[in-house]
């Protein structure tokens, strides 16, 4: 990797934890370390922003699909038959 001026291993360790960071699943201490690293490392900042955006896009694109017209009727008939 081409990170200049600081420890690459930190970037690698952070890369592994990025989703937990996004999901706020890290404890306070680990979170503070990531915050500090991201402020100092533009590559990890960029990596974080693209992953966060990926998550946001997945969430926001999850709209309801139109239900097929026949589905409710099929389900009703199926349950009626099963209940007999």
């Amino acid at each position: 990797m081409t990170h200049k001026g600081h420890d690459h291993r930190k970037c690698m360790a952070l890369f592994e934890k990025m989703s937990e960071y996004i999901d706020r699943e890290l404890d306070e201490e680990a979170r503070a370390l990531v915050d500090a690293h991201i402020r100092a490392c533009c590559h990890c900042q960029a990596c974080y922003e693209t992953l966060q955006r990926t998550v946001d896009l997945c969430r926001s694109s999850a709209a309801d699909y139109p239900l097929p017209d026949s589905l409710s009727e099929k389900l009703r008939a199926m349950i009626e038959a099963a209940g007999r």
Partner: protein
Amino acid sequence: MTRREIMNGKKTVRDEDFELVQAINNGRTDLFQQLVEKYQQKIYNFGMRMCGESRDAEDLVQETFLTIFRYLKGFRYETRFKNWMYRVATTTCLKAKRKPKHAPERELSLEEFMPGEGEDLPDQAPDWAQRPLDQLLNEELAAHIKNAIIDLPKKYRMVMVLRDQEGFSTEETAQMLDISVSNAKVRLHRARLFVREKLKGYFDHDA
């Protein structure tokens, strides 16, 4: 509201469906239709996100509700009803034969998403990560995201759909799939990295 209480030493979760499920289990099977009407959209969405095609999603909805109808009596309210229902849906989905057009069942490794030695890393996030979300999201992009998720191997796809689209917590997802919390986290992270690569490809191509 979900209220946990200790009954006979066992945890019981009282959720919004508790009384309806109790009534059905006490003989009012006619009320089962209410459960179907309440949740058919959710399970259909889940089916579409997992299978990508309405015929397969319909099959999933039918099988899921049929299984729930048959086994509801055995449901002990150790989780919310909704979570149990999704557990049935995920099990049904995992049992379904793999479609030839779907991604092969393979492991995703962290390494495949790491930048290579000597590769130039961006100093700044690309435009697609910085522009306001509502300026970015359109039908074409939504379709691309849907396809990227469909391209994931199933066990990764399932975790990502449950976490990032159905809105379940890591713990709930792990419980539904009978996997550890750390396993759920690993799968989710790799799935997100996979989808991110697809998005990069999409936007690079666009540029």
